[in-house]
C-alpha cells in the first residue's frame, strides 16, 4: 500500500494559505479598475442556475424566463509567498446578482467598499451587507476626476458608518493607491481580531 508515498506526492508539506478579499461598491465605482491596478485581472464567469437561490429572490426583472444567468466577476491573484496567496474578487455590481455575494463572502477576510461621491447611495447596499454579517470592511472613496472632493468625515457621516470603520481616499487607477486600500483593510481586520475577547487565549503560542 503506497499510502506514505501518495502523501509525499501531495505537494508542499505546508498547506498553502489562501486569503480572500472582496472589492465591492456600486456599479461603475471602480471595482474593476482597483483590481486591475494591483494585479492582472482574470475573467471569471459563472452560469448560475436560478433554481433554489434565485427563486427566493423577488427581483428577477427581465431574467425570469431564463433557467440560468451569466455573472462575470473580476478576479485577481496576488502571490505573497509560495504558500500565501491573496485572491481578490470584485462583487457583481447589479443587485439581481445578490445571490452570488453569499458565495463570495463565505470565508472572506473582508471587503474594500469603493464609494463614488457622485453616487454615494450606490454603495449603501454593500455597506449594509458587510455590516449585517459582521465582516471587516473599509470604505475607499474613489476620487474621480471632476468629482467634488469630500472629506472622509463627510462620507462617514453620509454613510452612517460605525466609528471604527476606516474611511480612506483613493484613486483606484493608481497602483500605490489600490495597494494602500488593501493594506488598510488587512490592518483593520488585524485590529478587530486583536480586540476580540478571548482571542489571545485561543491563539497558538508565538
Amino acid at each position, binding site marked *: 500500500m*503506497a499510502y506514505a*508515498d*501518495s502523501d509525499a*506526492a*501531495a*505537494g508542499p508539506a505546508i*498547506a*498553502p*494559505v*489562501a*486569503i*480572500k478579499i472582496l472589492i465591492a461598491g456600486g456599479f461603475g465605482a471602480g471595482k474593476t479598475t482597483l483590481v486591475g491596478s*494591483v494585479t492582472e485581472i*482574470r*475573467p*471569471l*464567469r*459563472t*452560469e*448560475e*442556475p436560478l433554481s433554489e437561490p434565485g427563486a427566493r429572490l423577488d427581483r428577477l426583472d427581465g431574467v425570469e*424566463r*431564463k*433557467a*440560468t*444567468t*451569466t455573472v462575470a466577476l473580476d*478576479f485577481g*491573484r*496576488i502571490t*505573497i*509567498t509560495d504558500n*500565501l*496567496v*491573496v*485572491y481578490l*474578487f470584485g462583487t457583481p455590481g447589479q443587485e439581481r446578482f445578490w445571490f452570488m455575494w453569499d*458565495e*463570495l463572502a*463565505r*470565508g*472572506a*477576510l*473582508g471587503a474594500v467598499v469603493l464609494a463614488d461621491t457622485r453616487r454615494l447611495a450606490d454603495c449603501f447596499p454593500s455597506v449594509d451587507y458587510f455590516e449585517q454579517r459582521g*465582516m471587516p470592511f473599509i470604505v475607499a472613496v474613489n476620487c474621480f476626476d471632476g468629482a467634488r472632493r469630500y472629506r472622509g468625515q463627510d462620507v462617514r457621516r453620509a454613510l452612517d458608518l460605525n466609528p471604527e470603520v476606516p474611511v480612506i481616499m483613493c484613486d483606484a487607477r493608481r*497602483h500605490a493607491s489600490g*495597494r494602500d486600500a*488593501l*493594506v488598510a483593510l*488587512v*490592518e483593520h*481586520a*488585524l485590529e478587530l*481580531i*486583536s480586540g476580540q475577547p478571548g*482571542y489571545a487565549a*485561543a*491563539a*497558538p503560542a*508565538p
Partner: protein
Amino acid sequence: MPSPQDRWLDADAGPVVRPYALTGGRTRPTGASLDLIALVTAVRGAAPGSAGLDPEHLELLRLCRLPASVADLAADLDLPLGVVRILIADLRDRSLVRIHHPVSPARRPDPRILREVADGLRRL
C-alpha cells in the same frame, strides 16, 4: 407550441445551455461544496484512464499538478465556475485530485498570517 429545438436554441438559451452540456446537463456537483479558493491538487501517479473522462477533465488534471484554486482553474479553462466545480467533483470522486479546503479566515484568522499579508502587500 415551439418545438424542443426552438426552445433550447434561441439566443437566450445558447450560451446558457452549452457549458452544461460538458457535464451531461448536471448543474450541481456531487459531495461537499467547493469554495472558490479551495485548492485542488492532482494526485501524482494516479492513472486517470480515459473511461468517462472528457478532454476537459484531463486538461484540469494537467492544470492542477501544482495546487490551484477553483477560481484559477475556471479562469484558466475559460469555463463557467459551476461547470468547473462539477468537473473537479468528478475527479475527486475518482480520487484523482485532492481538495484542500481553506480554513475560514473570517472565523479566526491567525494574526501572524495577516501581518505577513500586510507586509507582502506593502512590497507590491
